């Protein structure tokens, strides 16, 4: 039985903000199915009472002195932006026009 359907892959692509093509969906559905069936092996391990590890370094609340250090100028920070205006990143519209009006 397949671990994941073509429709589910299409849903994942939407969640991932990937405008995948129909052809890619066909390829990815098969490949993701193989990968997910393989990684599902982790379920064989009896680990109910085992705490999870998110990170190998046992550091918490790493703080530094609250002092001003040199940073990027606005010009430097915007130097790689596809579009900028008035020292800000310019983005495509976020709301539908009729909603906004």
């Amino acid at each position, binding site marked *: 039985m397949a671990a994941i359907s073509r429709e589910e892959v299409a849903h994942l692509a939407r969640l991932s903000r990937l405008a995948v093509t129909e052809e890619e969906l066909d390829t990815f559905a098969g490949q993701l199915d193989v990968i997910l069936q393989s990684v599902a092996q982790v379920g064989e391990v009896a680990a109910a009472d085992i705490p999870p590890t998110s990170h190998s370094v046992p550091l918490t609340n790493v703080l530094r002195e609250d002092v001003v250090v040199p940073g990027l100028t606005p010009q430097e920070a915007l130097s790689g932006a596809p579009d900028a205006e008035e020292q800000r*990143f310019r983005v495509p519209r976020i709301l539908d026009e009729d909603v906004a009006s």
Partner: protein
Amino acid sequence: MTDLTRLTATEIAGLVASGETSAVEVTRAHLARIAAVDDRVNAFLHVDTEGALAAAGAVDARRAAGEELGPLAGVPVAVKDVLTTKGVPTTVGSKILEGWRPPYDSTIVQRLRAAGTVMLGKTNMDEFAMGSSTEYSAYGATHNPWDLDRIPGGSGGGSSAALAAYEAPLAIGSDTGGSIRQPAAVTGTVGAKPTYGGTSRYGLVAFSSSLDTPGPCARTVLDAALLHAVIGGHDPRDSTSIPAPVPDVVAAAKLGASGDLTGVKLGVVTEFSGDGGEPGVQAAFREAVETLTKMGAEIVEVSCPHFRYALPAYYLIAPSECSSNLARFDGVRFGLRVGDDGNRSLEEVMSLTREAGFGPEVKRRIMIGTYALSSGYYDAYYGQAQKVRTLITRDFTSAFEQVDALISPTTPFVAFPIGSRTSDPYQMYLADLYTIPTNLYGGPGISVPCGLSEGLPVGLQIMAPTMADDRMYRVAAALESAVGTLTPPAL
């Protein structure tokens, strides 16, 4: 006349310091070598001729002024394109960052510059460091100098190929699941993954933040140790950087070079010494074990029962972290933007940009991660993988109560032909079978050449406890003293 490209970093630094050659001459020799062979190897994505010659000139000027130079001053270095370099293109092997010139240097690159090394350029890699062959680079595969029809490993295939092709004596890589060690193994070079937190991630384009570890690549163990010492150590700009000094890896490499391992206890990982590996790899590994025994090391077998679940756990944890990290590539602050025609919404532009900018392996991993983190699947996939990570860490901890370090082959197989594993992504994942456990645990690992199988290099991996990086350098240097460095056929 000496061919400067055949020298070790240690030898080059000595000649520059004594004035027998200049940093500019050394740099010119390497730039000429790149010009002569890189159209066939494709190790470099960008060669910074002007920057390299300026940096070399500055070293020569400092020497002329009587200033004391560091141990690697004047030595050329190739940097994996995953680290930001101020004003120098940084693509991470992806179309989504094509043409991006970062406004800042990563900590590793800052330290390389401060040490007087000469950055030659940026090396090819699998896109976003996701891959084991460099075939997933958006800019074409890198070719293994041992056999141009074969892969140089990945994701840092460019760095290791540059070393094996004598285009650079030193290189920087990054290791999330084996991306330094596996390319080192299949190109007959040395590559070390430091303890996680022992080298700074500031300016390292993130793939899987709890695993990503930048580290040194070289043709000799001592050179790798010298580079490790230059780039390692605490960085306040990385919140997971360990606030402790780097273990004395240089002294350990020098100690190991004597070839005496009396009193050192090494564990052969049972789970990695049986089937799964190619016969030629297994044979070279067994021979290396005999060599280490003759040097006085005591060898025992150690079982790490959860290592067999490392690969599936990794391919849940790393994609999960990547799906979150790569959300920053949204066509707003840097890189590509596609479809912004004034009518499309931000979300549409974002989806079109990511579709056009990411290659297939990156898309697969983002979707796997999105799946593993979804409500309903989280506990069974990501949550369970994190628990398995705990058990793998416990396997290491209990192993290191019995032995000083663990050994295994670095990879199950030698360099495979280009194109032979790209149609089945999971077959590609198997290349990192032996290197992944170390990343999940967070300890250091090194690959050092241990022989040939059918004319292709085989690497031995040494895994040490967290913050005991010096131990692996000692063992690696000892093995190197017996095996020697491997020389590929002339290009």
